[in-house]
């Protein structure tokens, strides 16, 4: 058994239960007797130890021993009666084989005053005791006790009353030492603590707590002459000083006299009160939608800093679309990734007093690429595969699923939940949920992105929205269309831009509509090899038609709500014809005059219509910028030039520019108008109209009437003062000279 350190042994003694266990163990281990613990450091007048083992015939001998002066070793244990000193020994059998040995000091620990039974000095006892367990005059076990006991210092004043006597604060400070926090103990660094002995104070005298909390509540006042000399002031300052005893402190009179002010209650951590949602009978915009059982109708939504909340309530008439990526560690077994149609067919309060059930339409995702992203899949483009516009060649789908026979598939994972809620008045008429499911390969580190959306539709869901009434609204799509010869109306179709996705190839790029008022540029890449650049004419035509597909319209709407039948609402789009020199023969790998950039210029203006400024489109121009495409094989990579099938990237792009044309251009300013700013307060800080600024309409700090009144008072005062002085006398003289 590992010997226990002394400190731990002493701690165990205070636990009899633990000790009993120890006793049993020790008895088992030794047949002989043993003191436990066998060495004790004590600072109190009582020491307890246990003698374990068969203690029949054992006698205990207590002796005060002195270590040898030369070696410092204790004398060898001898079973002879010695001087027990100021201690006496008490032994008591606790149970069989266990003897409790108790040593007690036989005098009090008070410092000597008027009593005899006392300590002569603060270190009252300093000695080594030895208890021997002797059997047949032979020492069987030895207990050593090192005693170092200090005298007890009692308060000198009698502590008769329970109440603290509060001294008169006018003459004696109530809390003379605020840093004296522990009663009867010297607080470290608290130099005013009366409990600190001078020796202890020496230890930290240079590091006393400063200020009020250092107990320095009676600093010498400024008028004291002693303060003056200690400061860095000039010798004449203060001019006079007072020499008075330190007891005459001006701080003595500063004490609390009983006036109280009610503290203003500040904010704090309030206990959260969560009220249960109260379903209202009808819905208004922004109200939460409730289910039949009175709970929120929830769809997972993104919030905070992009985290998806699974149980987010849905607000009436507030559309949203969110993507929630989740790491797929194992195949999902419950919502939100694994849902069953029966769970989704929730009965919802419709706002008219009845209930509607969510109808679920299932779809199976054909292409998983928008939903599944795996770091393991590397969509490295095939360098020998040409890539043109959508529909021309096979787009290289980078998100092809790897060999599926080796990878576990998670079946019927929910990939999208698109809710369409039909509403009328203050309620819902129907909710349709389109749920997209798919089989997702369980790949380590695969992220499944789920789409959640809700759209509130009133009436016909397929109705085309307008972009303003009548003028365009910034950020709404520009409406365009082609003339349907049969009906004579304009069929709407959008003007688009590339929306590159993934690797940015045109083959995979989507499209986004051009919106009013925003200048945009977007582009995508074609991958072509030398063999593709052989037929330049064909390539030109391919690129041109690819870009022209973005603007497959002939008319653009003048205003935000055009009438399809009224051709005056539409403006013809000007297409700048391509000026291509077809005759030029170019070297292999080079094609000149490729219409690689599409410019769309939209000329808009602001006119006063129906009492406010409306934005209208005046004209639209579509043109191409030509560039030369050349297979680059400098820089050490000669592969594209030597092999006719190795491809390179070529950019095609388009840009939309809105040009605002003022309705009435002001006449150009002359140089004099530009330089002469004396009366133009926007361009000149010291213009003449603001000479009397507070009295003009420019001044808005106070109401005009108020500043005018104040100004008139001033003027009146000035006139009165000047009239009553010299001027008045002069006027009087003139007056008299006229009449006399």
């Amino acid at each position, binding site marked *: 058994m590992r010997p226990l350190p002394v400190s731990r042994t002493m701690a165990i003694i205070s636990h009899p239960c633990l000790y009993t266990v120890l006793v049993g163990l020790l008895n088992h281990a030794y047949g002989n007797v043993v003191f436990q613990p066998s060495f004790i450091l004590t600072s109190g007048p009582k020491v307890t130890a246990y003698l374990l083992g068969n203690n029949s015939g054992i006698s205990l001998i207590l002796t005060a021993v002195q270590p040898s002066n030369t070696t410092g070793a204790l004398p060898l244990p001898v079973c002879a009666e010695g001087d027990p000193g100021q201690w006496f020994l008490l032994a008591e059998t606790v149970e069989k084989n266990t003897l409790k040995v108790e040593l007690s000091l036989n005098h009090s620990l008070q410092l000597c005053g008027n009593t005899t039974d006392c300590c002569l000095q603060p270190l009252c006892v300093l000695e080594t005791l030895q208890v021997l367990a002797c059997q047949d005059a032979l020492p069987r076990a030895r207990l050593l006790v090192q005693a170092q006991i200090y005298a007890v210092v009692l308060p000198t004043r009698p502590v008769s009353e329970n109440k603290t006597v509060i001294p008169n604060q006018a003459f004696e400070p109530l809390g003379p030492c605020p840093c004296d926090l522990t009663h009867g103990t010297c607080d470290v660094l608290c130099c005013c603590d009366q409990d600190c002995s001078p020796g202890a104070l020496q230890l930290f005298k240079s590091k006393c707590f400063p200020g009020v909390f250092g107990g320095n509540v009676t600093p010498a006042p400024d008028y004291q002459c002693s303060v003056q000399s200690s400061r860095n002031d000039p010798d004449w300052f203060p001019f006079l000083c007072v020499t008075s005893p330190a007891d005459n402190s001006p701080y003595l009179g500063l004490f609390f006299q009983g006036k109280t002010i009610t503290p203003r209650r*500040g*904010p*704090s*951590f*309030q206990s*959260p*009160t*969560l009220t249960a*949602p109260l379903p209202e009978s009808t819905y208004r915009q922004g109200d*939460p939608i409730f289910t039949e059982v009175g709970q*929120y109708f929830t769809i997972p*939504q*993104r*919030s*905070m*800093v992009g*985290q998806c*909340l*699974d*149980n*987010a*309530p849905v*607000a009436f008439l*507030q559309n*949203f679309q969110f993507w929630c*990526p*989740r*790491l797929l560690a194992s195949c999902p077994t419950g919502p939100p990734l694994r849902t069953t149609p029966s769970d989704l067919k929730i009965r919802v309060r419709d706002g008219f007093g009845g209930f509607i059930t969510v109808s679920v339409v299932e779809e199976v995702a054909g292409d998983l690429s928008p939903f599944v992203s795996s770091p393991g899949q590397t969509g490295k483009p095939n360098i020998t595969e040409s890539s043109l516009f959508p529909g021309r060649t096979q787009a290289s789908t980078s998100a092809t699923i790897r060999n599926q026979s080796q990878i576990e598939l998670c079946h019927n994972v929910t990939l999208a939940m698109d809710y369409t809620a039909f509403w009328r008045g203050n309620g819902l008429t129907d909710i349709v949920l389109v749920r997209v499911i798919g089989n997702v390969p369980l790949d380590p580190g695969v992220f499944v992105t789920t789409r959640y959306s809700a759209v509130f539709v009133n009436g016909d869901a397929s109705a085309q929205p307008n972009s303003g009434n009548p003028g365009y609204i910034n950020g709404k799509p520009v409406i365009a269309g082609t003339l349907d010869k049969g009906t004579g109306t304009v069929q709407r179709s959008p003007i688009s831009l590339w929306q590159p996705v993934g690797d940015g190839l045109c083959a995979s790029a989507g499209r986004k509509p051009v919106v009013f008022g925003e200048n945009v540029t977007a582009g995508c890449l074609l991958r072509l090899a030398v063999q593709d650049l052989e037929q330049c004419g064909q390539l030109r035509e391919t690129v041109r038609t690819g870009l022209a597909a973005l603007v497959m319209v002939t008319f653009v709407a003048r205003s935000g709500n055009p009438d399809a039948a009224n051709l005056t609402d539409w403006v013809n789009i000007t297409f700048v014809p391509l000026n291509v020199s077809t005759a030029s023969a170019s070297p292999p790998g080079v094609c000149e005059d490729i219409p690689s950039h599409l410019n769309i210029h939209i000329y808009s203006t602001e006119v006063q219509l129906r009492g406010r400024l409306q934005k209208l489109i005046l004209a639209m121009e579509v043109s191409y910028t030509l560039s030369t495409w050349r297979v680059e094989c400098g820089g050490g990579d000669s592969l594209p030039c030597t092999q006719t099938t190795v491809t390179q990237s070529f950019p095609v792009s388009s840009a939309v520019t809105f040009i605002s044309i003022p309705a009435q251009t002001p006449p150009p300013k002359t140089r004099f108008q530009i330089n002469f700013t004396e009366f133009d307060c926007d361009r000149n*800080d*010291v213009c003449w109209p*603001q*000479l009397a*600024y*507070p009295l003009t309409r420019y*001044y*808005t*700090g*106070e109401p005009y009437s*108020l*500043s005018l009144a*104040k*100004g008139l008072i*001033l003027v009146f005062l000035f006139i009165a003062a000047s009239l009553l002085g010299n001027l008045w006398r002069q006027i009087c003289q*003139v007056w008299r*000279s*006229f009449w006399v």
Partner: protein
Amino acid sequence: MAVYEVYAHPALVKYRTAVCTKATLFVVAVLCVTYIAPLLVAYRSHGFWLKRSSYEEQPSVRFQYQLLLIVATSTSGDYVAWSTFPKFNSLQGNKLRIPSTSAREEDQNQDGKLDRLHLLLELPLRPEEQVYSIQLLLTFSYQLSRMSSVVMQSLLLLQHSSSIPGSQLFLSGDLRLQQREPLLHRGLDTRYNVSIINANSPFSSSYDLAQIIEMYEERNLTTVLSSPNPVWTFGRAAAAPFQLKAVIRYPMDIIRYPFRSPGFWEMIKFAWIQYVSVLLIFLWVFQRVQTFVFQNQVLPTVPVPLLKQHNA
């Protein structure tokens, strides 16, 4: 015997003239030039009418004891969140983790205005969780009173993220006012005394940090934490909580104030100082000119003979 000037006193000489004379015209012209020219000089040399000014004030700030905490606990999107808004907490489901939060506001110089906030937030974490980023929203009530009484609710966003998991974030900074426009010179301004986070909303969109910050930044008066030196400490013991220690001081701020224009009398006062200082020069010069003209009879006037002075 030496003779010296023992005393001197000015003698008043009066010059008389008829109304329609060159002397009258001269006096009127000099009078106009003396009093109007200083106005033009003072005005045309810029800064005559006080239009913008600033002052210094320590705001009285109270922490509203509203917090919203989002902590990312893995690089793959796991997080824990907590706030003092019960509706937000009920949205979190099993992502909710309640930290132990202590806040103490101190008035160090005993002037009745709080000077600093000590915030300690200890977020318990499972041994496998690590903290990569933290976002914490705090709301304050902010008051100014020297010129215009502004009462508003303001927001601080404490955020930090690191690619190395941390055990503690220490921030020590100042709460600073950001003014997009100057304050009024008087009156009560309670435009922004509205709660920034809608605590009664059950919708997740109300707790979208981007939306909250976007709406907050639309205001003309906002507060920011200027804490240039956040300290991100690595190495969290397995059972130890993540600690956020923040000391946010509420220092003096310089406030631009006349939003439209200062008060009438304030403008007149500063204009008067400039006007009079220029006027004195003109008075002195034209007095000399007048004395010269009349003394030397440049313009014909009738000097009144020096009479014996009566003590009036």
